């Protein structure tokens, strides 16, 4: 049965302080799914996750079961790492989930670790999430005491350890190979792929890196089956969709919704509409790395494939009439990303908003690849002067060509994360940039 607006999985315990304690979580049915999982074969769990159409909730939307199946069958040591480095601007779901339901994450991780035969596992949490570090560590300590973690979990013979590894302020560590370097005690700079982490990751061992929300969905899949989870969703996207709505709406919030909801329903019905009686100008659909939608494009579903392929979304251009090629002639529309939906009303200063986004990427570039290190710096500089009314004729094309020079030419996707919104905003709001530059010339 498809999910409706009352279907709550990963946010079911929001607002319920009971769920944070182990006793309270057990009363809510917690860790029963772990018991069930330990009675299954690891391959059976992976098969259910594959059948569930669970896709990564961190940004890329990659099929989780597929990712798990990349671990070589004869691997002796495997690690599972939870990516809790949520820092994509506009995204605030993982932090809330850890805060309200830490045991659901632990249960999801132990089940997933069992499926992957992973013993020493880690949660990489953002350094700034200090309150959540405390909540999570307390929950882990409780889980060890009750035998949900440790040497012989519930008498099954399965050994699983969880260690919280706290970051120290670096957006790039949300990129999975940078995260692994940071976990190893290095500077958080991404690694070249291949080898992919599933083959050679943490400490040289096969490693699966999954997002918080992704792992929290696993207990439900074990409980009710992959087919049930797949049916909740739409097409190749199983389950519910948790979005974080922020910006110019009346009711910002973290909402767990059906995949079938449209952007317009999300804004008007769920988030209470645009504030101050205004209209939508732009919507970032999945964190600032994603190209924006304009007001005419809001009837598409908030689902992974729809946002990539729905032809009602205008493809991103480099220059007017020149479509951006993602490789192999593929157009870029946008992506569901991390679920961070940022709504901008019709009085928003778009060049100023874009400058703030570029300032972020310039600050967070790790400096390893020249196109990103230099390119994000230049994007910030040019965007700043345009935003502040000091733009020069030609600056719009200059920003677009710098962005185009970054995309596809860097080790990790931070390059695209800066380039895509730059080209995307120019494609859809060129008039706003032109008006600022004309104002500067006048």
């Amino acid at each position, binding site marked *: 049965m498809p999910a409706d607006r009352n279907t709550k999985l990963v946010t079911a315990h929001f607002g319920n302080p009971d769920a944070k304690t182990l006793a309270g979580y057990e009363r809510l049915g917690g860790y029963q799914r772990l018991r069930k999982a330990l009675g299954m074969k690891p391959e059976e769990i992976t098969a259910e996750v594959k059948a569930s159409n669970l896709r990564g909730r961190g940004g890329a939307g990659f099929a989780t079961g597929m990712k798990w199946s990349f671990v070589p069958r004869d691997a002796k040591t495997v690690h599972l790492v939870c990516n809790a480095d949520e*820092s994509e*601007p506009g*995204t*605030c779901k993982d932090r809330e989930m850890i805060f309200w339901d830490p045991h659901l994450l632990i249960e999801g991780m132990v089940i997933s670790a069992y499926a992957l035969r992973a013993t020493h596992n880690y949660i990489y949490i953002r350094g700034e999430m200090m309150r959540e570090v405390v909540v999570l560590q307390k929950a882990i300590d409780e889980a060890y005491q009750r035998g949900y973690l440790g040497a012989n979990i519930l008498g099954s013979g399965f050994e699983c350890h969880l260690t919280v590894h706290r970051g120290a302020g670096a957006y790039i560590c949300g990129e999975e190979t940078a995260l692994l370097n940071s976990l190893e005690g*290095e500077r958080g700079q991404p690694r070249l792929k291949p080898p992919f982490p599933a083959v050679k990751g943490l400490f040289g061992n096969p490693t699966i890196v999954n997002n918080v929300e992704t792992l929290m969905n696993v207990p439900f899949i074990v409980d009710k089956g992959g087919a049930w989870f797949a049916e909740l969703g739409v097409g190749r996207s199983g389950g519910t969709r948790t979005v974080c709505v922020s910006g110019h709406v009346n009711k910002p919030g973290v909402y767990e919704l059906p995949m079938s909801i449209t952007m317009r329903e999300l804004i008007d019905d769920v988030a209470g509409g645009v504030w101050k009686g205004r209209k939508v100008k732009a919507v970032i659909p999945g964190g600032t790395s994603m190209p924006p939608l304009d007001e005419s494009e809001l009837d598409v579903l908030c689902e992974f494939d729809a946002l990539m392929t729905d032809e009602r979304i205008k493809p991103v251009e480099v220059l007017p009439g020149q479509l951006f090629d993602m490789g192999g002639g593929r157009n870029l529309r946008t992506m569901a990303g991390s679920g961070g939906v940022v709504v901008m009303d019709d009085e928003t200063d778009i060049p100023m908003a874009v400058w703030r986004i570029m300032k972020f990427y310039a600050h967070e570039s790790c400096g390893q690849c020249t196109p990103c290190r230099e390119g994000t710096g230049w994007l910030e500089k040019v965007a700043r002067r345009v935003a502040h009314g000091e733009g020069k004729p030609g600056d719009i094309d200059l920003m677009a060509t710098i962005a185009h020079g970054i995309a596809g030419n860097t080790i990790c996707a931070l390059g695209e994360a800066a380039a895509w919104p730059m080209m995307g905003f120019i494609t859809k709001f060129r008039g706003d940039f032109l008006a600022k530059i004309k104002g500067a010339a006048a």
Partner: protein
Amino acid sequence: MSLEFTAEATKKIQALCERYPTKKPVVMAALHLAQKEHGHLGDDALQLVARTLELPLAHVYGVATFYTMYRREPAGQNILRVCTNISCMLRGAYDVLEAFEQRLGVKKGGTAGKFTIVEEECIAACANAPAVICGTQYYLDVTPDQVGRIVDELRAEPHPEGEVV
């Protein structure tokens, strides 16, 4: 004089070393602990971490200077992390930042007595923008007129980041 860790921190570091195949991954936690115990990460604190984990000082320096939460300079007890990224900016974060700067008489990045102001990148509280954190304390849906109260509260009861480590 060379710095030392307290017995409590030493115990924590030893316990963490058991969780990884080598000592190197513990460098991040050890730097957090050194910062907690010595206020900031001067050269002597970096040497302490290097010595404790048997790592080259250059490696520790490289890690300490990569991540923004490690401070090479002293800071106030309360580090006010004021988010100005997109979701917060759209709802007035720069006015909030300015209100803190005026109230404390210091610009972002600077320290005034018990307070250091940091212009922070997205702190994952976008649904309650503008957001400010100080240690484990969140201030949500902040308006400039609340800034005075926040400062007074933190002056009376500081929330140092070290309390988490």
